[in-house]
Every structure is written in C-alpha cells, then in structure tokens.
C-alpha cells in the first residue's frame, strides 16, 4: 500500500472531479459558497470512507451478480445516516445543501470507488482511498466555490465567515450574477479542469527534466 501515491492520485492525477469527471451534478449545483463546498466535501468524504470500508470488508461475501444493488443499499444507508445527523445537529448546512445530501446516493464517485477500488482491495487501503478521493473532491469543490463566489457574489467565505454574509471583496453592484448560475458553474469547472491538466503536465515535465539531469 502506498499512501503517498494514493494521495497524489486522489488530489491530482486521478482527481474524481477534474480527471474522472464524476459527481458533476453536485459539483456544478452547490459550488456557490465556501460553506457549501466544505460541507458537501466533508459529507461525501465521510460517506466515501464508510462505504469503502464496509464494501471492502464484505467484498468476498457479496456475489458479483448482485453487487451493484448491494453497494447502492449500503451507500444509501450511510447517506441517510449522514442526512439525519446533519438535520438534527447542523440544520444550517442541511438546509443550505438541501436535496444534494440525499442525492449523494447516486453520486458516481461513491459507487465508482466501490466498484473500481473497494471491491478489489483490503479494508485499510480502501479507507485510505476513500479519504484521498474525498479530499480530492473537496479541494476541487472548494476551488470552484471560491472562484464562483468571488466572481458571482463578490464575497469570500459565504455562509461561514462574517456572520454568514462572507467577507465582501468586490462591491455589491459589480459581481456577475451569472457566475453563481449554472452557466458560471460550467465555465469555472472547465477552467479548473484545464488548470489541473496544466499542473499535471508541468509536474511531469519537471520530473522528466530531473531524471535527464541525473
């Protein structure tokens, strides 16, 4: 098991959002304030770790013919638990994310990792995979949130800092409302994906140069 490799994959080279392009619906819909991004990222990370661990533990028990049904049942169970706990203990976040918490059930990241990783690897490796992929998802989400919130609402840290208003950076009359609407989501996500591709190429070139110098 290679934690560093898994971490790098989750964060950059196999990032669930920018490379695997999974979970697009929630990514485009909720990335309008920092609070949403962090909350959604944490919720998905927790569910991803739990479902990966359980599915990995049961990987020899679940017959492959019914694995998708079994995985979805397990994932739906964890999502409902998180949803109920959020409603009971962090109602502000539950309200802000609304229907997108229950929709984590059909988020391809969770099922994708169950199918591609947890069903073939040990419990510990699957837990690490859940954590790394979750962090990758959260980071991609937070970056998209910060850009969209800044351009669309002119604030930073909405729902979290400055009593929920966010810290105003651009005066209220200037921000482009379109950026918090769907069109802004597609635009910003495209640029975030492009930036991550550039970063990957850059890092690859750098490591090649290093090898050549050796």
């Amino acid at each position, binding site marked *: 098991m290679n934690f560093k490799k898994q971490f790098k994959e989750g964060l950059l080279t196999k990032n669930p959002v920018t490379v695997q392009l999974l979970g697009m619906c929630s990514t485009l*819909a*909720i990335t*309008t*304030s920092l609070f*949403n991004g962090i909350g959604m990222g944490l919720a998905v990370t927790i569910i991803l770790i739990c479902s990966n661990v359980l599915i990995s533990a*049961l990987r020899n*028990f*679940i*017959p492959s*013919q*019914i694995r998708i*049904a*079994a995985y979805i*049942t*397990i994932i*739906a*169970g964890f999502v*409902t*638990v998180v949803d*109920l*706990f959020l*409603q*009971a*203990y962090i*109602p502000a976040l539950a*309200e*802000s*994310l*609304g*229907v*997108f918490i229950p929709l984590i059930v059909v988020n391809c990241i969770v099922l994708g990792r169950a199918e591609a990783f947890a069903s073939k690897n040990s419990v510990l490796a699957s837990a690490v995979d859940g954590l790394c992929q979750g962090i990758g998802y959260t980071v991609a989400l937070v970056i998209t949130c910060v850009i969209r919130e800044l351009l*669309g*609402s002119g604030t930073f840290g909405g729902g979290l800092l400055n009593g*929920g*208003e966010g810290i105003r950076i651009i005066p209220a009359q200037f921000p482009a*409302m379109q950026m*918090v*609407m769907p069109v802004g989501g597609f635009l910003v996500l495209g640029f975030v994906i492009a930036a991550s591709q550039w970063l990957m190429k850059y890092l690859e070139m750098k490591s090649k140069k290093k090898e050549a110098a050796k």
Partner: protein
Amino acid sequence: MKTESTVKYVLRLALTLLLITAVVAVALAAVNSVTAPKIALLNAQKTQEAIEAVLPGGGEEVAFTDDTGLVATVYQGNAGYAVKVTPTGFNGTVEMMVGIDPSGNVLGISVISQSETAGLGAVSAASTSAGEAFRGQFAGMSGSVSVTKDGGAVDAITGATITSRAVCAGVNAALSCVANMG
C-alpha cells in the same frame, strides 16, 4: 458454482441481498430513533420562531377555510394572524409563514423550509441582506401580490423568478384565507 442448482443459486443471491437490506434497515431505524425527536424539536422551534417573526406576541392555532389548497395552519394572536402556507417552488414545497394584521395588510413573511437552488432560490430563506430585502418588501402589501415581471410590485430574486412567484402565491393564499375569516 457449476454444482449449485438454479434454485440454490437464486436463493443465495436473494438471501444475501435480503440480509444486507435488513441490516441497513435496522441500522437506519436505530439512527432515526436518536435523531427523530431532535429534528422534530428543531422543526417545532422553527415554526414557533417563524410565527413570532411575523406576528408580534405569537398566536394560537385556529380553524380556517381555504380555497387555494396552500394553507396548512392558521395561528391567531392579538396582532392578527400568522398563516403557514406551502406553495410549490422550483424544486419542491416552500414552507413559509405569513403574518397578516386584522385589516388585511401583510406584517411580514418568513421561510421555514425550502429546497430551492443554493445561491438563487435559497436566497428567499437566507438570513443575508439580499434575503431580508426580498422578504421585507412584502410588509404592508395587501389584496394580491405578484412579481414585477407579472405586473406586480415585488422585486423577484435575481435568477429565481419561479421561487419568487411561489412566495407570492403563498402570500396571496394567506391573504385570501384571512379575508375569508373576516
């Protein structure tokens, strides 16, 4: 697997899935028994706060007649009525409280719960300056309200006309309900 009969094979699959769903169901029931009272308490608290936000002094639940099908509950207090209405927004029901004085003017509105788009329709319930400005404009209105796009006086939330229309529909339902009560 070759030696396994078809009956056995089907049963194995069905029983495995049954076992998994049963375990998940029991786990969910356990979690629900912990969180349900907490959620119910929060909702009751929110309803109470919503009543007091639109109707100074609060009120008691009273019987009502309603033709719109949107009115859920009516509370009567010294300052007038608080009407809980449930119009349909963009993603689902918008649960809101409308305060109305005895002569039929809106005292104020507050949104109890909604599942509108974050950053757009959800502004209707947000405790931000934009949300407060949107809800605040209803105070003092009477008769029938609608958004400016429909020829009314209510400035819709940018990018959330459907939510704004839903809120107007809720306010109208509350107004006509109170008008019927005389």
